[in-house]
């Protein structure tokens, strides 16, 4: 191999660095989740990550590929998935979810999996474990590690709003994370901190989060389900998975578009789908499911807009120049 192009960017780091950055961004979210929901939440996350890593190793062994623990992508996948689950789920749910995320990803080609396998696992869990996914506990009332919930004991702000009322907490409390919901979705502040870190480290770009949240905000603002528009807007945005999905969905590189215009379309469409699911889905927080649906078309979007390259805005001029050169020959 006569390849003389050996220089690589030393300061940009490797895949492990990329994934480590994501883990670092997730840690504040995780910590708040534990503060709000107790050690059970931590256990859910650990189980999901461990199952994801183990399943990835197993599948790669079966498919006879090299082992790649070191790149942490399975652990990241497990963490993100677990953070979208309620803290009170039975332990088989994160185990299944983590395993599914890894298996789906590896079966469809590893890094080249054409959709977001974490979001896919989330959607499957909603189908398979539907009741358990809907039971939430109130924040700061820690469920013991061995405990479980078998009925609806607490309504998340999203569910309250879907019923037409307003949740009891005020805006600031919701922002900080006292509203309740899935482990990672309660605290907007820490998610935003994580997002800023990822932007700084150039793991993600601003396009998807901004278009996702922006589209959702605009649509919700135009069709408020409640008289108090700003309060309504705030609750819808700050709780539930919109901010979390907008930021951490983009981390799964295979299911995210690459070119800028496809990213914006991806974000806008996700926002639209989420809002539709909330209005017509009976209080179902559809953010992560929206991500799954859009991730299926991420690669086709890229190919569709691939003609927008160097020289595309000068197409006519360049064609005219070429014709002139041909004529002069």
């Amino acid at each position, binding site marked *: 191999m006569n390849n003389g192009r050996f220089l690589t960017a030393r300061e940009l*780091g490797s895949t492990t660095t990329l994934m480590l950055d994501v883990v670092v961004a997730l840690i504040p979210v995780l910590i708040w989740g534990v503060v709000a929901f107790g050690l059970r939440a931590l256990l859910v996350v650990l189980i999901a990550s461990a199952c994801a890593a183990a399943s990835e190793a197993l599948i790669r062994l079966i498919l006879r590929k090299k082992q790649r623990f070191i790149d942490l992508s399975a652990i990241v996948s497990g963490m993100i998935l677990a953070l979208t689950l309620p803290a009170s789920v039975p332990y088989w749910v994160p185990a299944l979810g983590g395993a599914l995320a890894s298996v789906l990803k590896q079966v469809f080609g590893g890094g080249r999996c054409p959709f977001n396998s974490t979001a896919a696992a989330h959607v499957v869990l909603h189908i398979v474990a539907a009741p358990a996914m809907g039971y939430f506990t109130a924040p700061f009332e820690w469920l013991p590690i061995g405990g479980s919930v078998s009925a609806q004991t607490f309504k998340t702000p999203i569910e309250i709003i879907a019923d037409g009322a307003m949740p009891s907490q005020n805006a600031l409390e919701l922002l900080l994370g006292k509203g309740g919901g899935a482990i990672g979705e309660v605290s907007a502040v820490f998610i935003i901190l994580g997002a800023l870190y990822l932007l700084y480290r150039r793991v993600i770009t601003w396009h998807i989060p901004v278009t996702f949240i922006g589209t959702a905000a605009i649509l919700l603002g135009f069709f408020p389900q409640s008289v108090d528009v700003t309060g309504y807007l705030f609750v819808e945005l700050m709780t539930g998975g919109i901010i979390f999905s907008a930021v951490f969905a983009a981390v799964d590189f295979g299911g995210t578009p690459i070119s800028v215009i496809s990213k914006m379309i991806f974000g806008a469409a996700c926002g639209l789908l989420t809002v539709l699911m909330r209005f017509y889905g009976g209080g179902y927080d559809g953010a992560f499911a929206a991500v799954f649906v859009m991730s299926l078309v991420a690669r086709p979007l*890229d190919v569709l807009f691939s003609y927008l390259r160097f020289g*595309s805005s000068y197409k006519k001029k360049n064609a005219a120049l070429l014709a002139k050169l041909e004529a002069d020959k």
Partner: protein
Amino acid sequence: MYNINCIIIFIYCCVCGGFPMSKLYTFRRGAVVPSYSVARDIPITDIASPNTVELPISAEHEKFTVLVNGGDAVLCGQLIAEGRDGQTFVYSSVSGSVKAFSSRKDIAGNSFDTIIISNDGKYTPAQTCVPHSKKLSETTPDEIIDKVRHFSIRTDSGEALSDILKRASQNTRRFILITASDGAYSTINYRLSIDKANDVINGAKIIMRALGVADTDVFFGEDDTEAANSLAEAAGDSNLFSFRMMKMKYPRTHEKLIVAALTGRELSHPLTALDAGYVIVTPRVCIDVFAAFAKGLPSINCYVGVDGDASTYQRTLCVPLGTSYRRIIDACGGLSDDKTVVCAGGGLIGDVITDMDAPFVMPTAEITISKPISDECGECINCGRCASACPMRLMPMLIMAHSKKGKYAKAKRLGLDECIECGACSFVCPEKLPISFIISESKHVHKDEPSLNEEKMEAEDE
């Protein structure tokens, strides 16, 4: 009178780019490649004369008429071979005697004939090397182009400068001189601008007369201010040279990106900058043109930058054309162990040198001596960094995936032909995949195939 109005107007002018030096020219995308070069700050050095030089005396499918025989004495700058079409001339770069005739294979595997001359180290110039007798203002453009053709002066990419001048004469939109350094180990443009500034400026003036242009745009990089100052000093008060600073981004010396940075015009494949009326030269070209007129010497020197993380002696060298790689490596301390790799190119573009006895035939070269290149590569994780670094705004990882599977029609649709092979994509890849190498290979394998064929693409889909 530092009243508030003056200050506001001053700030307004600065912001609007009213002061040319403050405007940073750049293009979209690209990668930031820091400079690891140690040789940049050391003036151009000579090395002890090589014992022999080897010069090519044939080109693609064409044998030249050789004017000397084995054992003949030759002088520096003497014509030793001529192309049958009367367009190409080969000159001896040293004085000595003809030792032998041989042949060699180039990187692509094509063989070419060579002449080996043993060097007596005196560099006695031939009698035909006389300075140009007329003043520049009395010389017509055609005379300049003729002389350039006769002395076989080439651009850095190997094209004959006379062809370019002829095509662009009286038709040039802009004449551009690049002194920006590009890539991690680039030194030649920088050093030539500092060590031979007068030659560069005078050579540029000659080319300007041949083209019939009234000014030169000199592009230098953010970190090349010393080179720009040196050239500005040599240019003196002349308003023939406008100095424009380019942002620190790779690959800023590529012709299409220079045009995009200067005017915003983007040229797509297969147009070149020359097609659109932009003539782009480097300092070395100007020096060769000046030497042709001032001393009557053809292009006989080669400027080689030696650098790399496994190199012990980093310098910009001036050697006679035809010196072998081995001679240069030996003069630079040799290779520290068997596993170090010698690359022709700065680590972002280029090939590994396997034949150390091969001669330098291009007037500028970069040798990078580096630690062994690991063959291990990872899997594409679709992070998209390559796409955000590609200055042609392509998606390298998709093109690479299609090339690997042999789906060339699909790769062409995604822009395979637009690739300028700069290497920015593989530079930023976190998995260290040889993206640029794979894309270059597939480009060259399929450059003769007709483009975009619908049936072919459907066949590939199955």
